[in-house]
């Protein structure tokens, strides 16, 4: 299943935040969206998943999601959004219960996703007992459980310290290599974008427009921390964004 953004534009009252964004997201690819703060990247992600409606334009699903897919468009949030009163496995079973999956079938799915995210030993732990990195792995496991066609990741590593971030990036690459998934990955961190993105979409400051789409052909599994060619791409992205980011920073906040 592919996703097509067709002329998306949005404004709050008279305040234009996004203008004419058209983009194809093809399956099996990770598309990173970067841009200065306030450019509407997270809002764009909420449009894609249907949590908010754009004023102009449409978000289209091209083709049907696979049959086994319980929740085609699945988010991973920056603040994890785990229910603090449910254990790790309870948080995963939450999203299965509504699809009528209970008992042994649910157990099997939960065991599988916990194994894939290396959380098997923590199935009974409560979120308050876990570190930030572990919490985000639980959120990733929860997303995997519904077998999404497209993962919508909203700054998933931004709440974590830089070491945990590196570890989780490795985990994401490993997950993707074993079973390629489609993802839209919003971030302000260019290092994450060049490590994880097949394509990096650079948005301008408000009103957010696509400035440039940078393709990175190097396979994910071959990318490493501090690769010279990735650094070069990252530098290039930063040059694209630098002035925008400075101008965005100097703007008065709206509302």
């Amino acid at each position, binding site marked *: 299943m592919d996703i097509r953004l067709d002329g998306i534009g949005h404004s709050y009252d008279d305040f234009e935040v996004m203008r004419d964004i058209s983009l194809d997201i093809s399956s099996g690819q990770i598309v990173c969206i970067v841009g200065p703060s306030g450019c509407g990247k997270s809002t764009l992600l909420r449009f894609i*998943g249907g*949590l908010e409606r754009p004023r102009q334009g449409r978000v289209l699903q091209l083709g049907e999601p696979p049959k086994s897919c*319980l*929740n085609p*468009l*699945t*988010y991973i*949030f920056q*603040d994890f*959004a785990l*229910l*603090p*009163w*449910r254990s790790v496995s309870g948080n995963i079973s*939450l*999203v299965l*219960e*509504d*699809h009528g999956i209970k008992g042994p079938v649910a157990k099997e799915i939960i065991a599988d996703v916990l194994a894939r995210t290396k959380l098997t030993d923590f199935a009974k732990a*409560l*979120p*308050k007992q876990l570190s930030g990195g572990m919490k985000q792995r639980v959120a990733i496991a*929860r997303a995997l459980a*519904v077998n999404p066609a497209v993962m919508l990741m909203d700054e998933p590593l931004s709440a974590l310290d830089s070491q945990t971030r590196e570890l989780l990036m490795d985990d994401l690459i490993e997950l993707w290599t074993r079973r390629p998934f489609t993802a839209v990955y919003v971030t302000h961190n260019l290092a994450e974008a060049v490590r994880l993105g097949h394509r990096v979409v650079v948005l301008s400051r408000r009103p957010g427009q696509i400035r440039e789409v940078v393709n990175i052909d190097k396979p994910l599994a071959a990318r490493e921390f501090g690769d010279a060619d990735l650094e070069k791409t990252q530098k290039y992205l930063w040059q694209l964004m630098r002035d925008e980011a400075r101008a965005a920073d100097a703007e008065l906040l709206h509302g």
Partner: protein
Amino acid sequence: MDDSGKSVAFRGGGFAPKSRRWVGVVVFVTLVLFIELGTRAGWISSLSLPRPSDVFETFRQLYDSGLLFKHLGPSLSRLTVGAIIGASVGISVGILIGLFSYVRSGLVPLVAAIFPIPKIALLPLFVIWFGIGEGSKYALIAFGTFTPTVVATYGAVDNVDRTLIRMGQSFGLSWWSIVRKIVLPGAMPGILSGLRISLAIAIILLVAAEMLGAEYGIGAYILEAGSLYDLERLFAGVVILSLLGVLVSGIIGMAERRLLGWRT
């Protein structure tokens, strides 16, 4: 190394009260002993305060004669039925106010209008509506518990983390599932602390409810003692109410430990 430096003065700490188990009991016992001593020595006149040992003696007589449970039984049933009706209706209405714009706009002013009415003033009205029997007593206690429960509940629902609700929606959970599995448990801390207040109010109203047409009941017992200026019996009744309050607070504490163990 040079040792001539001055060690930095400690200025942190404090502002984190912990529970010290027996201090409460010690304060209570000291107070009772103080009154006992004062009344025995005579510098507290027996007209202003009854002697604690006399109150205890009255209490023992009440227990021995079996009257204690004759009074306690109807009171407990009134308290339980009234509080359960009031709290459950209050929680439901509070959740509806927390979820629906029209219910909120319609009922919040109404609740604000009902809240400050002393419910005791409405007792005659309840007697006309529900009869002089148990009905009016249930109604008074239920009505009194209802308003604080509503206010606490919708405040608690407002405070449920919206990102958790967005998460539920993004995973395609049904509306009912979101309410049951996200909103309700998320609002539970606020609901329980609201219940602490509303149940205390229920005990206060128990006495008021037994002002009219009650032969037995702690409230009736206290009011009778009061009208006769029988301070020993009055205090014995008051002690029972206090114990009831401690018991209710203990039950809610237990519920909190059970239901809210997930809190940090």
